[in-house]
């Protein structure tokens, strides 16, 4: 059986910063990631991030991903790539699938940073080739450099929907429309303005009724909806599109946290069922931490700070940091997280995070 001090499950934004922080403190750290290389969703993010200078504002996710990879290597972080964690067992043992065989990994601390999954929207024709997640589209255009279609309908006007629409335009596609079921646009105004200026209409109060086509998407039928989300008859429009992107939210990928026995809270503002954690990112099970989108759907910037906080707290618990230094640095990270949870978007998440931490004290 393999052994490590700190096992980080998931090598995305949160996992990498957690590993870097704890390795720099002196711990033996292993990142386990199912992909060929770490980075999670960072390498799809070709746009510049928001936030302050310390939050890498003005930097593209792609560059941050490259920097983190280098920092992880320099810090001596071990990686197990193309490896799936298929189970989490008592006394913090992990079951790994490595190609054609399985292995076990024993560890003192587990940091779960497994990220999130795109939500699905079901409607007649949604299984036709051509209907895909907005994140899937982003992977295809920014990493694989292929267009999934020329004429696109984007469903969902949150940040993901708006950003991916803009990236589709940059990639040379024609975004026919962005539709949003709610009566308002959920994403940042600056993103909405950019795509409107490029001639893309954003239709609020609209939903997709069905996708049509023989072997793949050839048309989308959209319609206006009333406050009860019922289609208003007579408002149907037919759009000639080959691709329908679904940008209808993300949910934490939490199977391992459920399996381990973490306590969960249902918080729509954070994406649904979220594992509860304390101010050190530790869940109700000693030695198991959570960070990033798994601990609540937010942004890459919060994922990186939560990762650092979890990594620092984990290293401190193993004795790698003097308590005073640990206390100071954790406080600084908590302040940085608070600074990211402001404004009309951030406040909702800040409140939900407080509820999540209070759930730790219940029962």
């Amino acid at each position, binding site marked *: 059986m393999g052994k490590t001090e700190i096992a980080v499950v998931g090598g995305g934004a949160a996992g990498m910063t957690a590993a870097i922080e704890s390795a720099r403190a002196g711990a033996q750290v292993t990142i386990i990631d199912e992909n060929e290389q770490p980075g999670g969703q960072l390498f799809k993010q070709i746009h510049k991030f928001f936030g302050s200078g310390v939050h890498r504002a003005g930097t593209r996710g792609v560059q941050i991903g490259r920097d983190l990879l280098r920092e992880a290597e320099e810090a001596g972080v071990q990686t197990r790539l193309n490896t799936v964690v298929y189970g989490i067992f008592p006394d913090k043992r992990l079951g790994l699938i490595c190609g054609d065989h399985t292995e076990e990994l024993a560890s003192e601390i587990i940091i779960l940073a497994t990220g999130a999954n795109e939500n699905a929207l079901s409607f007649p024709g949604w*299984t036709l080739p*051509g209907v895909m997640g907005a994140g899937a589209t982003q992977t295809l255009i920014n990493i694989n450099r*292929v267009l999934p279609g020329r004429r696109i309908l984007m469903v969902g006007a949150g940040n993901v929907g708006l950003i991916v629409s803009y990236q589709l335009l940059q990639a040379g596609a024609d975004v026919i429309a962005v539709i949003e079921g709610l009566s308002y646009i959920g994403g940042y105004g600056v993103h909405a303005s950019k795509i409107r200026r490029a001639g893309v209409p954003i239709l609020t109060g609209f939903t997709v009724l069905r996708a049509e086509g023989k072997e793949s998407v050839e048309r989308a039928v959209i319609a206006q909806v009333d406050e009860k989300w019922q289609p208003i008859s007579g408002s149907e429009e037919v759009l000639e599109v080959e691709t329908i992107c679904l940008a209808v939210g993300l949910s934490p990928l939490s199977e391992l946290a459920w399996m381990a026995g973490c306590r969960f809270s249902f918080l729509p503002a954070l994406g649904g069922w979220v594992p509860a954690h304390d101010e050190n990112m530790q869940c109700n099970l000693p030695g198991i931490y959570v960070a990033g989108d798994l601990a609540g759907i937010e942004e890459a910037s919060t994922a990186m700070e939560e990762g650092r906080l979890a990594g620092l707290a984990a290293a401190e618990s193993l004795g790698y940091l003097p308590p005073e230094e640990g206390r100071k640095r954790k406080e600084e990270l908590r302040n940085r997280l608070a600074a990211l949870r402001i404004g009309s978007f951030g406040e909702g998440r800040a409140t939900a995070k407080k509820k999540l931490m209070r759930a730790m004290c219940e029962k």
Partner: protein
Amino acid sequence: MRIEDHPILGKVERGRKITLKVDGEPVMAFEGETIAAALIASGQRVFRYTEKRVEPRGVFCALGRCTDCVMTVDGQPNVRTCVTPARDGMIIQMQGTPDQRETALDAGEGEG
């Protein structure tokens, strides 16, 4: 459709050209890209037909999670093409196609 030039990402750097055999037909790919990317670039959107309802499926999540894009690769079924790198000479076959079913039925297998 391949994206050759891009305002942010610049000109694409691709690996060497390789050839895949997809249901008997040659399909051009670049070394290092995923099988799914190569197929989409070549204009293919249907990757398989489903077991029960014989319905076409293609790429849905592009991350290796939903398993809609699976094909038989070099004899191994259920390979997730969106996370599998293409290699020169790979033999790729669609699963569940209508004529595969006809053959199975003729041979006395399948439902019945």
